[in-house]
């Protein structure tokens, strides 16, 4: 009833528990020999023991198994004994025919337990230790029985009757129910004939059906509270890991049944909230979230709430934290920030430091994920203890202060997972932001306005370090239960399947691995953090421009933690690996890898895989000169982003960057420049400096192509300086190359400058650059030589021909017709100068082929047909 919490451990005696008691009695029958009567070996005896343990702990369902299920499992474990076991069990159960039999039965059970004075016992004697798991179970059963009223005993007796009967005639009762349903249908028809006055007559059977499925028939019992909580926790983990693998309605049905059977178990509403959250049902999620916290006052379920500090005011701040994260999930940044602000205030008011730490982390996450141009008026008074420096700070500075504060809080509260997560967030911040002095007045220490890779590395390491010294924070409920569940599930598998499946196929690879990791003491959430640190590393190296290191980290992730990771993280890693393939191995390989990834992440909604596919298609269409398709793909990419301002920034930037590049390829220079310019303004507004570097470089390229080299130069230089501040080495090399091209286009007297620039960038480009970049560099180098008046081709033809050949090889893989044509054109000129006419014709023919291909773009397979 209102405001009163139920004791969580309450325990009701059910027919299934009586069965387990019977089995425990067999397992631990008092005898003088080491292997009691029916068993023939110690391992057989132990197997039954393990099975019983698993029965009392596993949390794979909400309902207790029926007798027939129990019997079929007994067959699995009993081996030669199975007949004896099942016969004994059923005869023992059916012998319980009056309340007095039950009294006697539980009296007998007492004999199974060793007394408190049985500490000194002979070695060989089998006596159940009252404090062992099974002993405790037995004691609880006996206690629960003793607490029953006479009516309760009568119910138990009736239920045991139903339980046994169902095992015998399980199929016939099903038949009966079917018959029941068909009756209604038969009835409905003549009825509607009787008075069909324009009413719909076909709709009756539908609404009742759902309810009828949930409808209880006698022998359905919930498992123990402990097992159900474990089940719900596992389901919650599973939903958060991969929500799309749950079907909304199937799980909803289970939850509804659970709610019907246990109306005071409010956790159900939370699971409902999660279920609708991950199926993008906003209203239902909102409703259930409120309902859960109204009933539970935030004092049910959450592990990090210390039970001692449970005050009577409830912990509604947790509700706010969840609500804030929900709004974040649905892409409502403003509401999310408002709610989280309220969460901060209420947490402070109720001095719930743990919640405060988590809320701050959530706010940091929000601020870093979603572009806020200003937080003034939102991050107001409640933040003043944290941002005491004043409110004149920029969003980034506020974020920095909040991150620091959040980290400190998490450290002092010893919330190790949060600390690790905060370190990762800090690393991410350091990766993309230059540190600036927080004070706008007073003496300033000189600061280099650069990001510091060492700091990033340090933060990533710190995060990892804490995970490696992880000690169990949460309860042992799930790991213990999960182990039992896994053990029970493996009953069905024949022995040796473990070995077989390993070399079976790559698809089943995860199964044995999963089984191995289950008993390990590292919970899934920790593994997820480890995984996300690898993801951060991969991204960091991507940004710094080391392709091999980025790839290695992604591979480590994919091989080691992919099973524990959430499906969206796993998809991200695949995206990274496939992008790498596309850049270094060409589209063919990338698309075949994409096909595999698509199958694997088929169900993931709003998938990164889809975005990747569009990216690759766009890239290829541009290279092939298929501009219409490119524009179409580009538009599709733009549509995927949310319409709310500042949400899905990454995708929006990507889409408009690609739009500009499509326009550039179509030689609509002024429009391309306009798009790129507005994009730059957006990046500037939201302080996205890494992206700014890219956009500036694009602007430089647009001016280069449009013949405005003089205008292009400052853009290229600006991009270079961004690259320097943010240590974007590869992008810097690329910018250097563009700069060289710009110089080159200014006239032959700048070739020396251009050549020096290219040669300076070469190590980076050849070491880490993709096919396109390398080819561009080679061609630019050749062009430099060719336009240098002091260079003579006939003296040193290989200096020009070698890079051109390299370039044409690489461009062939990419199917980049325009650049390839240019390469062959240059080659033809060189051969002409050398007087090698045959080779000149060959190069010219290749040139012609590429130009033709460029002008009549035709696609063998329509790539969008399966999109």
């Amino acid at each position, binding site marked *: *009833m*209102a*405001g*009163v919490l*139920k*004791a969580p451990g*309450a*325990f*009701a005696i059910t027919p299934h528990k009586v069965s387990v008691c019977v089995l425990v009695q067999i397992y631990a029958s008092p005898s003088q020999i080491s292997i009691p009567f029916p068993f023939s070996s110690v391992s057989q005896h132990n197997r039954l023991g393990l099975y019983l343990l698993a029965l009392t702990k596993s949390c794979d369902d909400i309902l207790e198994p029926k007798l027939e299920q129990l019997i079929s499992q007994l067959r699995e474990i009993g081996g030669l004994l199975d007949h004896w076991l099942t016969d004994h069990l059923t005869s023992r159960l059916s012998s319980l025919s009056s309340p007095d039999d039950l009294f006697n039965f539980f009296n007998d059970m007492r004999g199974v337990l060793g007394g408190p004075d049985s500490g000194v016992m002979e070695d060989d004697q089998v006596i159940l230790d009252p404090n062992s798991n099974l002993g405790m179970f037995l004691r609880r059963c006996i206690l629960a029985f003793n607490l029953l*009223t006479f*009516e*309760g005993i009568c*119910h138990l007796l009736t239920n045991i009757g139903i339980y046994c009967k169902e095992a015998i005639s399980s199929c016939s009762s099903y038949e009966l129910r079917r018959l*029941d349903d068909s*009756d*209604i249908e*038969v*009835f*409905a028809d*003549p*009825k509607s004939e009787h*008075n069909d*006055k*324009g*009413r719909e007559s076909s709709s*009756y*059977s539908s*609404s*009742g059906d759902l*309810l*009828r499925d949930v*409808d*209880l028939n006698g022998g359905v019992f*919930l498992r123990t*509270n402990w097992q159900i909580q474990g089940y719900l926790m596992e389901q919650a983990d599973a939903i958060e890991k991969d929500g799309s693998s749950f079907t909304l309605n199937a799980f909803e049905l289970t939850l509804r049944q659970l709610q*019907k*059977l*246990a*109306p*005071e*178990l409010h956790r159900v509403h939370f699971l409902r909230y999660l279920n609708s959250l991950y199926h993008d049902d906003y209203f239902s999620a*909102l409703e259930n979230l*409120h*309902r859960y916290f*109204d*009933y539970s*006052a935030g004092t049910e379920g959450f592990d990090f709430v210390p039970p001692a500090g449970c005050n*009577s*005011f*409830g912990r*509604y701040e947790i*509700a*706010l934290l969840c*609500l804030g994260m929900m709004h974040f999930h649905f892409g409502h940044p403003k509401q999310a920030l*408002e*709610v989280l602000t*309220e969460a901060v*205030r*209420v947490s402070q*008011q109720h001095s719930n430091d743990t919640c405060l730490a988590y809320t701050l982390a959530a706010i940091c996450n929000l601020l870093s994920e979603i572009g806020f141009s200003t937080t003034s008026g939102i991050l107001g008074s409640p933040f003043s203890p944290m941002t005491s420096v004043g409110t004149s700070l920029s969003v980034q500075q506020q974020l920095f202060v909040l991150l620091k504060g959040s980290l400190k809080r998490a450290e002092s509260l010893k919330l190790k997972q949060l600390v690790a997560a905060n370190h990762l967030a800090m690393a991410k911040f350091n990766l993309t932001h230059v540190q600036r002095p927080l004070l706008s007045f007073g003496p300033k220490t000189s600061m280099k306005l650069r990001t510091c890779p060492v700091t990033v590395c340090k933060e990533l390491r710190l995060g990892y370090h804490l995970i490696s010294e992880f000690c169990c924070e949460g309860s042992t409920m799930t790991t213990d239960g999960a182990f039992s569940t896994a053990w029970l599930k493996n009953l069905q598998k024949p022995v040796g399947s473990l070995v077989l499946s390993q070399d079976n196929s790559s698809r089943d690879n995860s199964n044995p691995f999963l089984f191995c990791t289950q008993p390990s003491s590292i919970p899934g959430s920790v593994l997820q953090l480890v995984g996300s640190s690898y993801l951060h590393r991969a991204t960091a190296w991507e940004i710094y421009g080391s392709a091999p290191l980025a790839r290695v980290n992604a591979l480590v992730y994919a091989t080691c933690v992919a099973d524990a990771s959430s499906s969206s993280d796993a998809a991200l890693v695949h995206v990274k690996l496939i992008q790498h393939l596309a850049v270094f191995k060409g589209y063919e390989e990338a698309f075949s890898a994409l096909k595999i990834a698509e199958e694997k992440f088929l169900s993931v909604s709003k998938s990164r895989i889809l975005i990747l596919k569009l990216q690759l298609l766009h890239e290829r269409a541009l290279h092939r000169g298929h501009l219409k398709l490119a524009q179409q793909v580009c538009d599709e990419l733009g549509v995927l982003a949310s319409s709310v301002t500042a949400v899905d920034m990454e995708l929006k930037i990507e889409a408009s960057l690609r739009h500009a590049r499509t326009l550039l390829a179509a030689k609509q220079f002024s429009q391309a420049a306009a798009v790129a310019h507005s994009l730059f303004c957006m990046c500037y507004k939201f302080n996205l400096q890494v992206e700014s570097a890219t956009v500036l470089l694009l602007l430089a390229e647009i001016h280069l192509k449009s013949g405005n080299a003089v205008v292009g130069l400052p853009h290229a230089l600006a991009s270079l300086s961004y690259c320097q501040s943010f240590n974007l080495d590869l992008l810097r090399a690329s910018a250097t190359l563009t700069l060289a091209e710009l110089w080159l286009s200014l006239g032959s007297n700048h070739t020396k400058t251009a050549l020096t620039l290219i040669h300076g960038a070469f190590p980076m480009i050849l070491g880490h650059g993709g096919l396109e970049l390398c080819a561009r560099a080679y061609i630019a180098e050749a062009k430099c030589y060719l336009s240098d008046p002091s260079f003579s081709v006939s003296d040193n033809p290989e200096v020009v021909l070698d890079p051109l050949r390299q370039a044409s090889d690489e461009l062939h893989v990419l199917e980049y017709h325009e650049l390839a044509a240019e390469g062959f054109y240059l080659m033809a000129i060189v051969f002409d100068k050398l007087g090698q006419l045959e080779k000149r014709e060959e190069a010219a023919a290749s040139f012609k082929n590429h130009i033709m291909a460029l002008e009549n773009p035709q696609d063998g397979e329509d790539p969008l047909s399966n999109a």
Partner: protein
Amino acid sequence: MEEDEVIHGDFYLLAKSYFDCREYRRAAHVLRDQTGNKSVFLRCYALYLAGEKRKEEEMIELEGPLGKSDAVNRELVSLERELSSLCKNGMIDPFGLYLYGLVLKEKGNENLARKVLVESVNSYPWNWSAWSELQSLCTTVDILNGLNLSNHWMKEFFLASVYQELRMHNESLSKYENLQGTFTFSNYIQAQIAKARYSLREFEQVEVIFEDLLRNDPYRVEDMDTYSNVLYTKECFSALSYLAHRVIMTDKYRPESCCIIGNYYSLKGQHEKSVIYFRRALKLNKNYLSAWTLMGHEYVEMKNTPAAVDAYRRAVDINPRDYRAWYGLGQAYEMMGMPHYALHYFRKSVFFQPIDSRLWIAMAQCYESEQLHMLEEAIKCYKRAANCNDTEAIALHRLAKLHRELGYPEEAAFYYRKDLERMEAEEREGPNIVEALMFLATHYKAQKRFEEAEVYCTRLLDYTGPERETAKSLLRGMRMAQSSFPSMDVEHFHP
């Protein structure tokens, strides 16, 4: 009919006697071989009631750690089978249909249940039980309009009752008043009219009706909880205690009785005792909506917010349209300093009762709170409140003030004037009048509309306090400005 046969009549009479003694299974057993419509109905109905009785007992016996396991009426399956086959063969009378509808409803087959019940009331309209069951299945106006009911005066009773349940109070009231023309002395209609008027917040008339009703029907307990609510709002201590005493003597174990006592203790400020009685009411009827809500109010008074939230939430889960409970939830969260979270509940409450100014005002105050400070939204809510007959006259005043604070003097003047008119009409006195006059005087003066300004200034002179002096100096300033046209700075002429 074959019941004419004496022997069958004897069986029926024996069974009926058992039935009246509440020995349901015994009654059913006596009729086991009877095939007449009346006997079949009595047998089935007895079985149904036996199942219900057992269900109620089991609900208590089976109460588990996580709440009650759902006890079910175990007779439903066999009853449904028997009645459906009877129905299929056309061998069923309207009473049988009623029972069949009841069984179908319990089994969750609502569409068919509705259809069967409609057939039952169409062929025998005087069975109010059937109408009641039908009413519980009409949860929306659309469903109601979809029913194919033949015309009969019983239908009017039904419609009036359904309208009340669907919160269409005016429609309900007019139906009942029509009916009262025919059934002049019906206590039932009188009580229903009182309830409808209560929902329309016409407390004075409700009190009169209930007084009259109690005179005619002194041992009535039904609907007296509504009367006690009226007495509570009017703070009639002794009348409420008298009523409580009276119902206790009549029947102590009625949810209504407990609720009345709860109300009395609440009025006396003894909230713990009040909760005890609301709890008792809920023990007697777990789905007693207003008891949950009232208990929530008591917990709010006792500053036990989680318990209040829980109680309110149970009320809205029983009936999601209960705007009072939504409002209570909002208030509870606002009390805990969570205005943003509270907004969700206020929104719900105004959604279900958009004509209640108090709800809009509560929501506006939430927006206005220091933490949210969303004044534009607050203004929108106050406007809604002002449009739906804001008896406490908070909205206009707040609207004027907010507009003034936000720097919209024109709008502020408009609302001050309206507020002033209203206060004059209701002959109110108080600081709000002075405030309004003061603002209007200065505002019109700044606008150079001296005539209006002068009117307000003169009115201010009737009040004591610093405003009076200000008004005097304003007047002086205006006279100066008017006399020495073109206007000059008044200050210079003062010594």
